[in-house]
């Protein structure tokens, strides 16, 4: 591949550097429209084969490069409706026919893609799903597009974009115990709104971010979508490099992929992580966030631990810490849909899945589940639910009269035990060192 040497005399953001590389340029400026070559295209069963194949057929072309396409079945898994099952059949046949890398029933695309080592710093990647910014946690410029646009990418290997400005979101100090990456994102949705990202690039920095695990960073990047940003980047560091090595990925020249000091920014926000409390967002918008401690008594019927943003291994581990040795409040149903099979297997090995079972939880498939609301499992009329998912739009998870609150997996677990929305900090065991 022809690579242009980056122009080091110009201060650029991480987003600019990756886009310049993908566009075959030494530097790009925010606002320019460029055409970039994609390093990888990720599609799933809903926006993927069933939508792109008719277009490829109409154009009379094949895939630009089958080795650069990853297909993951997650939206209609487990295929519990006739139509959903038919869509999965079509997806499986297409994967064989088009000879692409295919993960079937292995988990949610945004979690499976990095856990199988497909992402590395500096890559330019498109995904056929709005939560594709998740890849930004690995220093990858990744963003979501619709199916027709994806068909165009699959046919040509390229896509146009307007070079984004960068909104730097800096979190200093450390999160307190019981406060998570999810609380950071709910607080940001509340402060900046669902259009605060202006379809530009968000980049998270600061000591609080550097202290997070890769899966917690994925939660931040994932919910850049709820800020309305195109991408949600985190510059790679030793944590990124170690993770990629552990999954058979390639950290490559990760030290090169960072925002230069002096690069022009669109905005620069600074927050104190130590002052952040657990958050919950009231129906029907993530922007309705408030500290759990300020929410009036709110009884719940269903507690849902699921989704790419709220049921990864680290999320399950945090929730189990609350649930260990406790049972559900009377009348509350707890549903757990681990985000990937690999994460569920690891959680099972460590006794975490047993904690959920002992507490009385029902375990669902490693798939999008009720978060997407595409299958048979949906919330009934007038049900109040607290969920670890990313969106609580009206009617998304079930009946239009259902009410969904959003919280961290810890807050969901605490609420399941309390029978009402509860602050997880009241349920944490006291550490030995504190006694």
């Amino acid at each position: 591949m022809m690579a242009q040497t980056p122009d080091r005399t110009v201060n650029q953001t991480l987003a600019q550097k990756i886009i310049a590389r993908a566009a075959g340029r030494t530097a790009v400026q925010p606002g320019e429209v460029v055409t970039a070559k994609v390093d990888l295209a990720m599609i799933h069963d809903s926006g993927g084969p069933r939508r792109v194949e008719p277009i490829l057929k109409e154009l009379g072309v094949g895939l630009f490069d089958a080795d650069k396409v990853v297909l993951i079945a997650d939206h209609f898994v487990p295929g519990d409706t006739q139509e959903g099952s038919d869509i999965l059949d079509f997806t499986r046949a297409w994967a064989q026919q088009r000879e692409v890398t295919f993960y079937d029933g292995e988990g949610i695309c945004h979690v499976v893609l990095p856990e199988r080592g497909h992402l590395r710093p500096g890559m330019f990647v498109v995904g056929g799903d709005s939560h594709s910014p998740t890849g930004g946690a690995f220093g990858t410029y990744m963003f979501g597009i619709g199916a027709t646009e994806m068909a165009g990418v699959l046919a040509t290997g390229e896509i146009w974009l307007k070079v984004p400005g960068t909104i730097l979101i800096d979190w200093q100090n450390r999160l307190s115990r019981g406060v998570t990456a999810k609380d950071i994102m709910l607080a940001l949705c509340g402060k900046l709104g669902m259009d605060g990202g202006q379809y530009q690039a968000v980049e998270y920095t600061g000591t609080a971010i550097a202290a997070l695990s890769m899966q917690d960073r994925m939660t931040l990047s994932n919910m850049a979508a709820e800020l309305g940003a195109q991408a949600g980047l985190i510059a790679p560091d030793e944590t990124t490099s170690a993770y990629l090595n552990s999954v058979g990925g390639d950290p490559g020249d990760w030290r090169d992929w960072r925002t230069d000091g002096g690069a022009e920014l669109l905005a620069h926000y600074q927050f104190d992580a130590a002052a952040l409390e657990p958050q919950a967002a009231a129906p029907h918008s993530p922007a309705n966030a408030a500290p759990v401690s300020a929410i009036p008594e709110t009884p719940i019927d269903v507690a849902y631990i699921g989704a790419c943003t709220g049921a990864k291994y680290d999320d399950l581990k945090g929730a189990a810490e609350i649930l260990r040795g406790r049972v559900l409040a009377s009348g509350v149903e707890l549903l757990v849909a681990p985000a990937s099979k690999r994460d569920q297997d690891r959680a099972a090995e460590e006794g975490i899945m047993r904690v959920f079972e002992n507490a009385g939880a029902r375990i669902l498939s490693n798939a999008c589940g009720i978060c997407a609301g595409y299958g048979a499992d949906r919330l009934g009329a007038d049900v109040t639910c607290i969920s670890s998912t990313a969106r609580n739009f009206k009617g998304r998870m079930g009946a239009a009269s259902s009410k969904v609150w959003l919280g961290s997996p810890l807050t969901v677990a605490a609420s399941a035990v309390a029978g009402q929305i509860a602050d997880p900090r009241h349920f944490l065991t006291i550490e030995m060192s504190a006694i």
Partner: protein
Amino acid sequence: MSGRVFLFGDDVDTDQLAPGAFMSGGIASLAAHCLEDLRPDFASTVKAGDLVVAGKNFGIGSSREQAAEALRHLGVAGVVARSFAGIFYRNAINLGLPVMVAEDLGDLADGDAAELDMEAAVLRLTGKETVVRLEPLPENLKRLLADGGLVAHLKERFAEKRLEESGP
């Protein structure tokens, strides 16, 4: 040609436009439920040539392009909003559905008769003195819309490429 204005508020999301429960079926069955939670009679009363006008961040949420496709299927001639969510905006253009930004909606009201003039970048309101000024579309997007969306645009591009390859 003028159409009736259907006015909506801020943050109209993709689950309102294309509800998940109907995502496994075809576009006709999905479009029948488009915006039903906000306006139960929308799909049954909107006619070809009508316009959707909304506040900020229209189309926030999912990348499902059925959100734009449902509006087009119902015959909506265009969407004017104070701002759009990025993925929806791209999807709409790719599917040939005009989307235009208006900073100020002036005295526009639900039920107004209006005409969308993309070339002049204005929304003309029948019987009212004022016009709603729109941000002109960038040239590359104007071309995509004029071609009838991305598939038609790519068809032309591949046809030209084949012609070149088989050339003299």
